């Protein structure tokens, strides 16, 4: 009975794979390549990249003592330039104590509640964005390198399924735009390949920095779906898949996007 079930499932999976060719490695493009030269220049120059203001804030929070433990991030981790190098490039990672994968935001908040004994930061709060931008900056220029951890496989596969899942009143999946139609236009805006190698980003439309989850919620609202809530397991699964999909691409944090 079970074997009969598995075969059609495999055929369906194959059909889905062949219908939607993944973007070959040599064709992968960062979102920055779809931007105007002016916006690219804005991202490339640390004095004109407004994301660097968040990174400066993050550096201050890194050194600021907090919570009942009266400890700063720096008290345990030392200088972020050394200890946080490459961290954002490999997250989300499996967290043994929570027995689930967590992203950098989740890791910051876990440290905050367990080590600093302070209230976790609100999602999209200035503090959390500043710290994650500062941590992300330490991986700038390094390749996205998700860990080969078997415990992550199941979650990553779920993320892949979510990426290919039709949703919303418009009934689109992520892949419909970002794999089948990248490089074309949606209205006046070019459709990028949706690689998550620059987050947190400073988005000109937001006039502020925002997380990958905010960007994903944005797209979900765009297809008129009910967006997952911040910190939901679906988002972590999607982040895992997106990290695997952008494997080897250069981290650009803090990215600037239109």
């Amino acid at each position, binding site marked *: 009975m079970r074997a009969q079930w598995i075969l059609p499932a495999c055929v369906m999976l194959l059909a889905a794979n062949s219908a939607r060719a993944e973007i070959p490695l040599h064709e992968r493009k960062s979102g920055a390549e779809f931007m105007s030269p002016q916006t690219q220049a804005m991202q490339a120059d640390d004095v*004109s990249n*407004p994301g660097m*203001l968040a990174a400066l804030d993050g550096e201050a929070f890194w050194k600021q003592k907090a919570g009942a433990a009266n400890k700063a991030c720096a008290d345990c981790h030392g200088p972020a330039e050394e200890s946080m190098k490459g961290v954002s490039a490999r997250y989300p990672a499996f967290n043994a104590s929570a027995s689930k994968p967590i992203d950098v935001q989740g890791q910051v908040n876990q440290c905050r509640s367990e080590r600093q004994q302070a209230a976790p930061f609100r999602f999209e709060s200035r503090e959390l964005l500043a710290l994650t931008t500062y941590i992300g900056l330490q991986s700038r220029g390094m390749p996205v390198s998700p860990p080969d951890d078997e415990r992550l496989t199941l979650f990553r596969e779920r993320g892949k399924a979510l990426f290919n899942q039709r949703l919303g009143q418009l009934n689109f999946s992520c892949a419909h735009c970002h794999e089948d139609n990248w490089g074309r236009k949606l209205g006046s805006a070019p459709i990028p390949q949706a690689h998550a190698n620059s987050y947190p980003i400073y988005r*000109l439309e937001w006039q502020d920095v925002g997380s990958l989850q905010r960007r994903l919620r944005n797209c979900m609202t765009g297809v008129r779906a009910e967006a997952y809530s911040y910190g939901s397991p679906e988002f972590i699964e999607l982040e895992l898949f997106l990290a695997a999909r952008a494997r080897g691409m250069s981290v650009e944090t803090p990215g600037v996007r239109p």
Partner: protein
Amino acid sequence: MARALINVPAKAKKGEIVEIKTLLSHPMETGFRPAADGKLVPRNIIKRFVCTYDGEAVFSADLFPAISANPFLSFTLVATNSGVITFSWTDDNDETQVQTAKIEVV
């Protein structure tokens, strides 16, 4: 009040035209946006920017509500002598942020 990023070349030749870049973190709240309760968020923008070179004002600007958050200003000046360049931004609450940078003219 806020954070600022400034780019002033550390060294310049006498008479050289140098580019100055400044970026200040500020919400530039226009005064036209309603908050969640429907009331307008009070206007809070940088209204005045002044750059002085050795005590003399060399560049200034009046800013208005259509200017984006975290305003970026770039301009040039002629390097005449070594000295301190001072930047000041004043907002609607009359708070002024002052930053300085040194330039060495050889």
